[in-house]
């Protein structure tokens, strides 16, 4: 519902490439639903669960669904925030506050991504895995937060730069919604 406004801020190829993590997140979601359902059916009908279901859900699907789509939150103001004081600020101050909050958000995301690098490399070195009779390697999932938070940080930075160069992102308008459908009674 908010794909058009991004054309101004991002180049088209970036837009295409950036869909990949969203698709990965969607695949994680579907896989989670299907594997858990099969596991339930397998346990009930044949007394044979699908191996490593809990491990796949916990490490791959959950981390994937939580992390991969993060960057998409940069659009359409999906990063939930509060509008109490901000809304009443004068225009220039609004601009500055907005810029600072974007910078802070980007810094936070880069910090989380950076912090995740060391444990990811450690997990890779050790070859972490999970499970009992059947096992599944888990170290690749340690890299998911780096991708998720890193990309989000990147997109926030691009947005901050756009704001700094005087091209406010389109979704700045949509923060104060009209009271649609409120007075039909």
């Amino acid at each position, binding site marked *: 519902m908010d794909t058009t406004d991004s054309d101004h801020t991002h180049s088209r190829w970036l837009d295409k490439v950036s869909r990949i993590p969203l698709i990965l997140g969607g695949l994680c979601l579907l896989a989670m639903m299907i594997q858990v359902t099969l596991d339930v059916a397998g346990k009930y009908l044949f007394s044979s669960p699908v191996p490593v279901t809990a491990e796949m859900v916990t490490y791959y699907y959950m981390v994937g669904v939580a992390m991969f789509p993060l960057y998409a939150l940069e659009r359409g103001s999906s990063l939930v925030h509060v509008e109490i004081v901000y809304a009443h600020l004068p225009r220039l101050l609004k601009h500055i506050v907005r810029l600072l909050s974007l910078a802070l958000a980007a810094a936070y995301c880069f910090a*989380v991504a950076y912090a995740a690098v060391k444990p990811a490399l450690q997990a890779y070195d050790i070859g972490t895995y999970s499970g009992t009779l059947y096992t599944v390697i888990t170290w690749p999932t340690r890299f998911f937060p780096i991708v998720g938070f890193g990309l989000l940080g990147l997109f926030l930075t691009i947005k901050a730069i756009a704001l700094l160069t005087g091209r406010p992102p389109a979704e700045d308008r949509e923060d104060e919604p009209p009271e649609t459908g409120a007075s039909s009674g």
Partner: protein
Amino acid sequence: MSDIQVGLTGLGLVVVLLMLRVPIGVALGGVAFGGIWVLFGPRAAWGILSDIPYDFSAHWTLSSIPMFLLMGYVSYYSKITEGLFKAAQVWLGRLPGGLGIATVAGAAGFSAVTGSSLAASAAMGRIAVPAMQEHGYRPGFAAGIVAAAGTIGSMIPPSIIMIIYGVFAEVSIGQLFIGGVIPGILTALFYSGTIAVRVKLNPALAPKVTSQITWSHRLRCLKDVWPFMLLVVGVFGGLFSGIFTPTEAGAVGAFLAFVIAGFMGALNLQVTKDAIVETIKGTSSIFFIAIGAALLTSFLAISGVPAFLSSLISELELSQLELMLLISLLFVFLGMFLDPLGCMLLTLPVLLPVLEAQDANLIWFGILLVKFLEIGLITPPVGLNVFVIKEIVGNKVPITQIFAGVSWFIISDLFLLALLILVPSLVLWLPGLVS
């Protein structure tokens, strides 16, 4: 500065940052990171930042959140629930806020399927909010109803919070579950009353159905309810016969929703794509905030603020009523910022011995605790249930409006809480019958 002062300063800073439009997840996580740096140095700060985002997401029981979200989105886009809300509107239309009351009842029913409030909100949100808005409900009012109604999820069994409390306090989980039934139903009744009163006072919130509805129309509407009934029967039946657990129920529910949508001929690529994209965006948005809340909880654990406040209470010589009053204040305050689990874990080690010394009934206290924690889910600035609903309604309703809509239900919750404190038998009567 002492550790406690650093902790309290951190909380103040969170509020300031939120006012300045910093995204909620960033404000919580950023303050936590800085605070831990101040208290324990950079190594600890980076350590916690490297661990919690991953550790928090890699969670089996939380998988019910994306799965129930998906079930809700699929049901919404394929109109599985449309017939239900038409019927509800036709049947309850003359009741002030009838659709809202139906939503509360639906959430209470759904609470018997899921162990988590967030999952209950996730499942109900996409179904109920648009339905209410279509019938002219004010957006903040509609969103507030669902955010509050979701909190019944942990009160009516099953309940993950009760299980953790039961293990912690070494009291019977079965008794806690039974003890939650009446307070859960009372919560639903209180919420329904709140809706009715609000609509009576301000009819513009939720317009009444004015046209005359015939009985044949009413009965005709019932036949469109079947897709939803099928979903309910599948999820409830499977859960109660032990085919799957409350966590697995989400995945099976989402799968069933797809199957039913297929049978209705309502499933196409667009519906599938929309449901999936909105679910994953919603999930990662909720996790982005929840990770911040988990980081903040860790910071507060390290600063010792919750334990300090609890110990202040424990050192006073108080009657049980005074004690409960102060504990209520403590939880309302901590619940503003902490996630429910953190809130419980950080206070119980100090509070439990005090309650035991007072000879307080720990089943009763457990139920009160669940109520406290549930209230925390809808109080600002960190109200996870509100954030879930905000995610579902998107940009159409600002978060302040949802918090405003929810505030009435918090007041009704406080009344109920007082009632449960003053009349413990409301909690203890049913467990007493069973044991």
